[in-house]
């Protein structure tokens, strides 16, 4: 691939009348990267995707996708993009095979790709049933199948896992990892940050049309500087615990002390607990979860 960045947004803004859906967003993604857009409903995730698909014109700023302006609608560029909208809708009167053949034709893919693709998303048995008879999960899988038509170089997935059961969700993320591994850029929007561990290379947290944070999960953790919670269980009553524990920790329910530390001081704390010998029964370490991280950045956004 010759493009430096598959997606490049420079100071993009979009308003609908007086409502500013996206303000001053700059964003980029390279080949093979899986970027997650995280934010509440109405944070601007879908608007950003529509801007990148060329369905909306930016009010300000510059959008480039696969090296082109998506609003120009270059045929060759569109062919390399797959899109799964947030609420996937198909004509209920047609069968899955008919529907995918139609979309395959638009992408100039041969009809022979349809059957294997339906099998890949687990719809082979229902391929010739009307979409009107499908469950939500099946429609979502059909949605994914159409997004995968023609081995796209760039995939836009707008809240792809809503309505999927956990098993399917795992399968889904497995598929996304495979695609990204094969060099496709995946842009995924979600409000369930917790699902993204091990999937997203980078996370962009959006709030009210603005980027609050942009980085890998590790970077965001460091940025957020959220405390790590350590819970130490002592053998005897609180009063019999080592002095350092009584100083640094907070006593809770009988035999426990709660402590907090930073990533830098975590090991020192743990070593000290271990050195306390038989006085300490158990140690629990709770790293901040992705949801904690998300909540942290959002509250920081609110404080501004």
């Amino acid at each position: 691939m010759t493009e430096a960045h598959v997606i490049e947004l420079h100071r993009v803004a979009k308003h609908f009348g007086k409502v500013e859906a996206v303000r001053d967003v700059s964003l980029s993604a390279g080949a093979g990267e899986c970027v997650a857009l995280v934010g509440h409903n109405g944070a601007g995730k879908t608007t950003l995707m529509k801007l990148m698909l060329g369905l909306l014109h930016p009010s300000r700023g510059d959008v480039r996708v696969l090296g082109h302006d998506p609003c120009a609608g270059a045929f060759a560029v569109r062919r390399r993009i797959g899109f799964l909208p947030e609420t996937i809708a198909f004509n209920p009167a047609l069968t899955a095979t008919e529907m995918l053949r139609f979309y395959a034709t638009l992408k100039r893919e041969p009809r022979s790709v349809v059957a294997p693709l339906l099998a890949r998303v687990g719809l082979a048995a229902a391929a010739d049933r009307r979409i009107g008879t499908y469950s939500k999960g099946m429609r979502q899988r059909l949605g994914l199948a159409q997004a995968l038509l023609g081995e796209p170089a760039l995939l836009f997935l707008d809240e792809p896992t809503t309505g999927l059961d956990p098993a399917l969700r795992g399968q889904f993320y497995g598929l996304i990892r495979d695609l990204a591994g094969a060099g496709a850029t995946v842009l995924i929007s979600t409000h369930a940050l917790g699902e993204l561990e091990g999937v997203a290379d980078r996370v962009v947290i959006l709030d009210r049309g603005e980027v609050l944070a942009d980085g890998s999960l590790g970077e965001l953790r460091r940025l957020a500087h959220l405390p790590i919670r350590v819970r130490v269980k002592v053998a005897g009553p609180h009063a019999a615990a080592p002095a350092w524990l009584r100083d640094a920790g907070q006593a809770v329910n009988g035999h426990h002390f709660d402590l907090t530390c930073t990533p830098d001081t975590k090991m020192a704390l743990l070593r000290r607990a271990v050195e306390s010998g038989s006085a300490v029964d158990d140690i629990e370490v709770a790293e901040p979860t992705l949801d904690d991280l998300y909540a942290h950045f959002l509250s920081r956004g609110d404080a501004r």
Partner: protein
Amino acid sequence: MINLVAIADKELREAVRNRWVVAATLLLGALALSLTLLGSTPTGTTGANALDVVVVSLSSLTILLLPLIALLISHDTLVGEVERGTMLLLLGYPVARWQVVLGKFIGHMIVLAIATLVGFGAAGVAILVTARDVAAESWAAFAAMIGSSLLLGGTFLAIGTCVSALARSRGAAAAVAIGLWLVFVVVYDLALLGLLVADQGAHIGAGAIEAVLLFNPTDAYRLLNLTGFANVSLFSGMAGLAGTVSLGVPTLVAALVAWTVVPLAAATAAFARKEI
């Protein structure tokens, strides 16, 4: 081109699945057959021109029905897909918006063509079986009626598509479509008639009336069928008018084509600017 064919084909498939094709064909067929078989009763067997009677009565009913069917099929076509969310997905594909508009129009046109050709064709077959020695000119008038019915259907498909491109919601599109049907089919002629009666021929000349008639596709269709052929105009009671109206067949056909092209172009322009 491939995109146009694909979209038209999908539209046709959906119309078949949703029973639109069957319903429209049965409706037009039942109408044509009943007019053919019952409608010839008043003229008796002495009237050799059974087909002329059919052309007059069938074209009069087509004016009411075909625009309604065309508007029903087309008013929902763009705004409905936008509302259901299927348009978002479709426009994510390598398709130009004009291809969506035109492809859908072509698909709907095929639906109407099937309904008209099969439905009216059934009447033709019935005539062929029951009536004796029908004049060649009557067959020409019948064929011209089928052809002009397709043109009329096309104009209202285009108008419906235009409504669908401009409307903000399906409900609004349906209301506007029904309103337009009323205006073109009923109100326009009544208003014109009232105006002419009030005017008593003082200000409005024949030229002005002709111009006004061209601004309504149903009137262009009516003139085309009822005055286009001498034998037909005699039955229709339009012979007098046929003598005074100087609008030729090419002008009337051009009016119908313009009534298709202009709304379709407007629909394309409006849809191109729509934010989905």
